[in-house]
């Protein structure tokens, strides 16, 4: 999930921002959002039966 988030964040950041600093900031935010949302979803689904 972390590796997937990294690749997607890199491509989206470079795609949507032109300045390198903006790309890094947006990419980092996106990456954190992906990983955070993944962990949150994991815990929300944890009590549910398989």
């Amino acid at each position, binding site marked *: 999930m972390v590796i*997937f988030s990294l*690749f*997607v964040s*890199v*491509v989206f950041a*470079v*795609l949507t921002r*032109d*300045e390198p600093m903006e790309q890094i900031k947006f990419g980092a935010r996106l990456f954190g959002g992906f990983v955070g949302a993944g962990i949150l979803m994991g815990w929300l689904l944890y009590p549910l039966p398989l």
Partner: protein
Amino acid sequence: MRATPADRTQTTSTIYLICALAWFLPGAGHVWLGRRQKGIVFLIAITLMFAFGLWLQGRLFPFEISQPLVALMAVADIGVGLPYFVARTAGIGAGEVVAITYEYGNTFIIAAGLLNMLVVLDAFDIAKGRK
């Protein structure tokens, strides 16, 4: 990023050529349009993502109209361009359904193809002079 001479609006035939090239080799359209750094990042990220998917035992889906979801996944797979044909030619991408990483591999391969389609659309916009 500063505007380069390649940012000028292209002719229609050139635009389609750029889109075809951008699809065939991830990032090549951006390199053509003078956005070399972006192009190189796309080439590395998308190709690595696709290779990672294959390494995780993902499958290159066949184009079967009788199974619409499989056909859609095949379209997404082909979206990555040259790496897809290289993998097909080399006989990689048969997929190991019983492997624990099978679905993860599929996700990586499909997402790589879809991301490359977005990159093609971005190259189209740049060539049109919209960005």
